[in-house]
């Protein structure tokens, strides 16, 4: 295991375990995961279905709690926080993109993007908003309701929302899972751009080697444990490693 907790880490976990059920029916969704995500890097998490990818993301994003071990965002350990502190942390420090159903149907695209800041009662940074909106290419669609947007557009709005409040880190759980390859690629390009040019930190779960190829680093999970990792991945190398691990 080559990754270690460093001072520049945007988020990470130490010996994180998540156990569902008890006794015979016990499931170790996470089994002592220690990982850190450096600032301004794009990390992909891969692994077979049921390997604990979503669980790890949820625990890192303060949506769920660990059974043992610790997770942190910046210099805050989440395990010590109360429910309302966690909520504030999610609002101010974290962006999250789900596989689908990311938007509030009654709000326009723009309102969805500014939602976390509105909830905090903060004014969005106008310049940054413009940058984000232009990067996702949604300027003409800002007044539309989610039901008037395509699936790809909806996911882009979701990513824009995750980025809009300039969070410490953005988690995206299979953001391209429901998209065709064209829209998927657009979205990945955009996330890549956000990391390289805007300095964001993004962690993304994916099953698709070519999606993983957009990242700086890939972490492989299996049975709740980290199996391997790869720096500067390409689709072919990822595919090879997956085959290797599958054997």
């Amino acid at each position, binding site marked *: 295991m080559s990754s270690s907790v460093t001072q520049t880490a945007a988020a990470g976990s130490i010996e994180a375990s998540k156990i569902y059920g008890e006794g015979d029916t016990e499931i170790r969704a996470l089994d002592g995961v220690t990982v850190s995500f450096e600032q301004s890097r794009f990390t992909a998490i891969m692994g077979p279905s049921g390997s604990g990818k979503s669980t790890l993301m*949820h625990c890192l994003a303060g*949506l*769920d709690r660990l059974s043992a071990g610790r997770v942190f965002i910046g210099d805050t350990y989440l395990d010590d926080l109360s*429910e*309302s502190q966690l*909520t*504030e942390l*999610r*609002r*101010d420090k974290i962006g*999250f993109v*789900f596989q689908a*159903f*990311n*938007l*509030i*149907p*009654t*709000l326009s695209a723009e*309102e969805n993007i*500014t*939602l*976390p*800041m*509105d*909830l*905090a*009662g*903060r*004014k969005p940074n106008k310049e940054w908003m413009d940058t984000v909106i232009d990067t996702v290419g949604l300027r003409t669609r800002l007044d539309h309701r989610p*039901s008037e947007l395509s699936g790809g557009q909806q996911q882009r709005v979701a990513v824009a*929302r995750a980025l809009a409040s300039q969070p410490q880190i953005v988690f995206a759980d299979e953001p391209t899972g429901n998209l065709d390859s064209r829209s998927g690629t657009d979205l990945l390009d955009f996330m890549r751009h956000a990391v390289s040019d805007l300095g964001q930190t993004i962690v993304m779960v994916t099953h698709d080697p070519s999606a993983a190829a957009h990242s700086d680093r890939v972490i492989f999970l299996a049975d709740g444990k980290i199996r391997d990792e790869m720096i500067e991945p390409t689709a072919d190398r990822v595919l090879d490693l997956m085959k290797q691990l599958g054997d």
Partner: protein
Amino acid sequence: MFKVALKDILARKRRLVTTGLAIILGIAFLTGTQVLSGVLKDSIESLVGTAYEGFDAVVRSPEEQDLGFGQQIRSPIPEGLVQQVDQVSGVRKALGVVETTSAQLVGTNGKIVGSNFGPPTIVYNWLDDPQLQVGVLKEGHKPAEATEMVLDFTSATDAGYKLGDQVTVSAQTGSEKFTLVGLMGLGEDGTLAGGAKMMLFTTPTAQRLGQLPAEFNYIAVAAEEGTSQEVLANAIAAALPDTQVLTGAEFTTENQKSVSQFVDILSTFVSVFGYVALFVACFIIYNTFSILVAQRTRETALLRAIGAKRKQVLLSIVLEAVLVGLVASVLGLVGGVALAWVLKAFVGTLFTVQSGLPTLTASAIATAFIVGIGVTVLSGLVPAWRSTKVPPIAALSEVSVDRAGVSRSRIIWGTLFLLGGSALLALGLADAGPNPLVLFGLGAVLFLVSVAVILGPLIAAPFSRLLVWPFTRGTAITPRLAGENAARNPRRTAATAAALTIGVTLVTLIAVMASSIKASVESTVNSTISADFVINSSTFSIGTGIPTSAVVEARAVPGVALASPVRFAPFRLTDAYSQQQAAADPAKAQKNPLGAGDAAPPGEDTFMLGIEPQSYFEINDVGNTQGTPKDLTAGTFAVELKEADKHGWNVGDKVPVYFAKTGVQELILAMTFDQSSGGGSYLLPLETFEANTLALFNTDFIVYVKAEPGADLPAIRKQLDAIVADSPAISVQDLGEYADAQTAPFDTFLAVVYGLLGLAVIIALIGIANTLSLSVLERTRELGLLRAVGMSRKQLRHTVIGESMIIAVFGTAIGLIIGIIFSFALSVVISADSPGIFKYTLPVGQLVIITLVAALAGVLAALGPAWRASRLDVLKAVSSV
């Protein structure tokens, strides 16, 4: 399919509970009121039955006059008649009975016991015959001395007296003290309470209190062994042809009838609210089912996609509705009995009601099931029918935002209903058709349905957004979300609010009418009466007026310029026009079939004021007149011009009038006037009045007192107070107090009405809570998402509460508007009837309070759903389907 339906029900316990609750409440209220009126009627009839049980025959005067509300005033009969009856063969005992309402019981606190609305206080003489005496002594002995009395035990307790106490009785001649020597009650051992407050005295005392010198109200007769009531009655009738003779059974039935008339009014009144509650509940049931079915559209679509036929889908929903309706109706019946039981306990404080649980009649059960199941099935079927018409694939991909708010057919139907409702309302107000009240009611329902249900959804969304707009400046997102949530299902919002609209419409209508009536009374009093003080009697009972000596004493007070007495009595107009009116009214034509021996000719009953012409017109402004007060001499009367025109009378005409005391008299119309002041349309100079009315009407009903200019008013008042200090029922008021006193009984009535309407509003709140719970369930995923991106629990609660407040305020606003429209329509009609008197007045303060209360109620309704929403597990919510 039955299995699917059953599984559905069990899988959605909470939804089941919420739907069921609305039905249970509606049915409970309906059943409760039905059961209660049955219980009341039975109890009262059996009590009246026991009271006069011992009478085999009753002998009385054929001259009687109707006072309305089942009260009759009959001429008394001379004492000597008792002797004659006693001699008729078959008579074991004949005793003269005093039964009058001419005195009041004063409690230990110095206040009159009972209210104008409660059962009356009756003065009886003690009958020295155990068979004839009404009721039985429970404690103590009968009144033997002129200064002794017996009370029924409930009144004694209420008034705070025990045996041996000195009891204050307020009579015509002022207050008197009597020693309480006995307590009595109805039933075999005197333990049943009869409702009426009974005061029993020796015969001379009772005659004196009842102003019946050497007279009785009627004669009670006991038969000899072996003589039947019929034989007895016939024998007496043959011997005394000038009297009216009834058998004891007939007399009891007559009394029961007049009491049940009162109970009927009471139960009709209560049932009206039962139906309002049910109407509100129907809305809620329908609404809840619509939401449930809409939420299941996906599921039904899936069922249909995998091959279930439309009929099968519909059948499963009907099955579910029948099951829910059945269970809820049963629970509603139980709740209804419980409600009746509570109400019964309350009524039981007035008189003894049948003991044990109120029993359900077959008709109450049938109504509950028919209404409960019928409404539920219809409520389920309509939305289900609509949902099965959607092609399966469209339903499968449906999002939970309703875009079908505005459709052309909705506008057309809404407008049709609105026009139809308005037309019926207008017809009802214009007194058209056989039953204008039904027309008015039907029109009101149509109008309400059209505005609240059909057109409501058209305005629900813009209204919601408008309402939150002032709060959404800057970055405030919770009001915005609340507004959008209320706007996203306009049909749902409108239907939920409609339940509240009904209650608020009625409350507004009543509040506006009440304040208008108050303002009208006040302005009439101030503009037509120029007295400085009014001596007023606080009791309505006949024969409890102001002693005639008061006027004389008031005139003697230094600084008093004028004191004008006014008396009050019923009489019957028997001119051609009135006879025609009476014949046209079936209720009046068949009135009192038992009193076949009554001497009164057909005609219309109304009331008149006995006045002193010189002073009355000085104090009361009656507008222009034809004829002068001087023309009002003995044998004449004055009438309001409007009435004279209606009957076709001119000054100088002879008008036939019937009095209980003197029979038909021809009075000369000596004067007409433009406006009635103090409510009197028929004015008789005291000479005419006294000659023709019974003694009990010849006390003053009101005395106007006018001071000389510049007189010391407080000093005058002090002296006037001293004159009536003896009678707790009589007080001195200035004009402002007098106007207030006129409308005071109204306030009690209003409090009752508001209380009953409060129930309808509570049901409406349950409806809002229902809708919100279902909406929260439906939006679980969305709420989870909001929490995931950082909405705090508090913010989420506020969003749900905000939505609830919008629904509540929307319902209230529409209710206010419709209520104001209805009340305005009514006021137009009233004003057309009597121009210049009715002052339409909006009680702005009260209306603001109603709105605030509604908004607050919205908060209350949302507490449960808001709490549940904020406790959602974020992850589970996000991943829920």
